[in-house]
């Protein structure tokens, strides 16, 4: 009997019967909206001459609308990862893994169902982030009469790739939660790696050409490559994968982490 579809439907209900999903969606929207709106206002004020010449020091950076829109993924990607990791770790924390495996004894099916649903949920967060970055960012730029770039199809393609990036981050979260089944352990690892370790590695790897060739495969760099714009790109020192290359690197990481997680925590005795 095929149990994947019932398992996917059960995983969907697990999310909607608890509150975390919309709490995180609100925080994600507010966070990205404030950042996009803030930088949008900065660009707008600069372009309309509200700010005196030389009062902003952008170190030669061109602030353009796509940078603002990319906040949706460059800042927002951590939300689907944490959410997905918690969807896995709370099963162990609250021992609901017992009724889960009783209802669906094929453990690989349960993990696959989680990956499917959290891919979809990551895409949902991607839409929320794109709305916050694109909506609030463009509205702010428009308020100052600056160019929003929304007439350019490339901008819309960027927002679309952002949705795909966050969907893949959802699957990576499932993998990370399975690799580190401790809820606190996995959240701390995700926050420390994405917010501190990886930015430092990306900066350090950009210092020489040959390390840059490795650094472009870092998850955050691959994600930025997929979306096609980021602060790092604006700096212009890092080499980057093509957008599809970034997408494949993220997909590879997603598959590898889920498969690894299966062997680490999903086949173990549940006691």
């Amino acid at each position: 009997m095929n149990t994947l579809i019932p398992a996917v439907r059960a995983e969907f209900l697990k999310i909607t019967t608890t509150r975390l999903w919309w709490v995180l969606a609100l925080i994600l929207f507010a966070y990205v909206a404030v950042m996009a709106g803030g930088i949008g206002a900065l660009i707008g004020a600069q372009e309309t001459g509200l700010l005196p010449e030389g009062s902003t020091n952008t170190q030669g950076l061109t602030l353009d609308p796509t940078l603002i829109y990319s906040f949706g993924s460059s800042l927002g990607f951590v939300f689907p990862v944490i959410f997905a990791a918690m969807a896995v770790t709370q099963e162990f924390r609250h021992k609901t893994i017992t009724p889960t495996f009783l209802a669906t004894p094929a453990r690989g099916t349960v993990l696959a169902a989680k990956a499917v649903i959290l891919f979809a949920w990551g895409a949902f967060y991607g839409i929320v982030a794109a709305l916050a970055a694109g909506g609030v960012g463009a509205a702010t730029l428009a308020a100052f009469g600056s160019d929003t770039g929304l007439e350019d199809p490339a901008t819309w393609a960027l927002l679309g790739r952002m949705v795909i990036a966050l969907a893949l981050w959802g699957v990576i979260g499932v993998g990370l939660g399975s690799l580190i089944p401790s809820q606190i352990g996995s959240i701390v690892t995700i926050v420390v790696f994405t917010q501190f370790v990886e930015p430092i590695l990306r900066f350090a790897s950009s210092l020489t050409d040959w390390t840059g060739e490795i650094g472009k495969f870092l998850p955050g760099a691959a994600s930025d490559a997929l979306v096609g714009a980021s602060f790092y790109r604006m700096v212009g020192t890092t080499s980057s994968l093509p957008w599809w290359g970034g997408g494949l690197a993220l997909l590879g990481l997603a598959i590898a982490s889920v498969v690894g997680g299966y062997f680490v925590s999903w086949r173990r005795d549940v006691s």
Partner: protein
Amino acid sequence: MVQGLPIQLSGVTKRYANVLAVNNVTATIAPGRVTGFLGPNGAGKTTTLRILLGLVGATQGVATFGGTPYRKLASPASTVGAALEANSFHPGRTGLGHLSVYARAASIPQSRVTTVLDLVGLSDAADRRVGGYSLGMRQRLGLAGALLGDPGVIVLDEPINGLDPEGIKWIRGLLKHLADEGRTVLISSHMLTEVQQTVDDVLVIRRGELVYTGTLTDMEQRNETWVTVETPSTELLRSSLTAQGLGVSETPEGLRVANASAAQVGHIAFTSGIELHSLQHHSTGLEETFLALMQEGQQ
């Protein structure tokens, strides 16, 4: 029509690094009866049940339902219903939400969720978060989860723990009713007195090994019995009883005659013309028999 399958454990063994948690457990649990799986905490009850349900892998041996291991069952939730601990719930989910999730996973219609909530008396609390449930309500919710698929086999780990006296009376009736319908009912407990009025058959496990398998009635036969008798002619009675092959010892309450009935002792005294002042029959309780099993582990 309910189909109760026999549960078969054959040579089930679980070894952790240096502990033998379950050692060569072999037993058959019959349909249509309530079977108590008894033993002190840490004796291996929960590990055995988890092996039975495919949650823990056995080092050796197999556990099946009518010949099929849990993980190979075509539709596990409608064959076997289990509740293993009173707190495997997400505290933020409502009782209704919890059951709905597992109903979906097992392709059980949503209407059945309402039915089982009603059956365990949780309809009024269905929309409250489980985090606010009492232990007794969690037990009822776990039981509702076990009954979701209307299974022929029901496995419950310590189901009476945390229930109030009214709840205990209710669950006893329910378990008997389920067994009478032809289902196989297996419940574990660390206290015999808790399940004494409910179970037909008993498995006693001690340090991972089965030390008793049989009916509760047979277990009662193992109770130690004796008679105390008071008489002014102590020496005369003692020799008459000893002559009949009975073991006699002297206590402050009079003579103690082991493994004898009051009628037997009274008759011997009467035929020997001995005056008696009191004659009393004594027996150890089932709980003491159980505790003796726990200590000695004799088969």
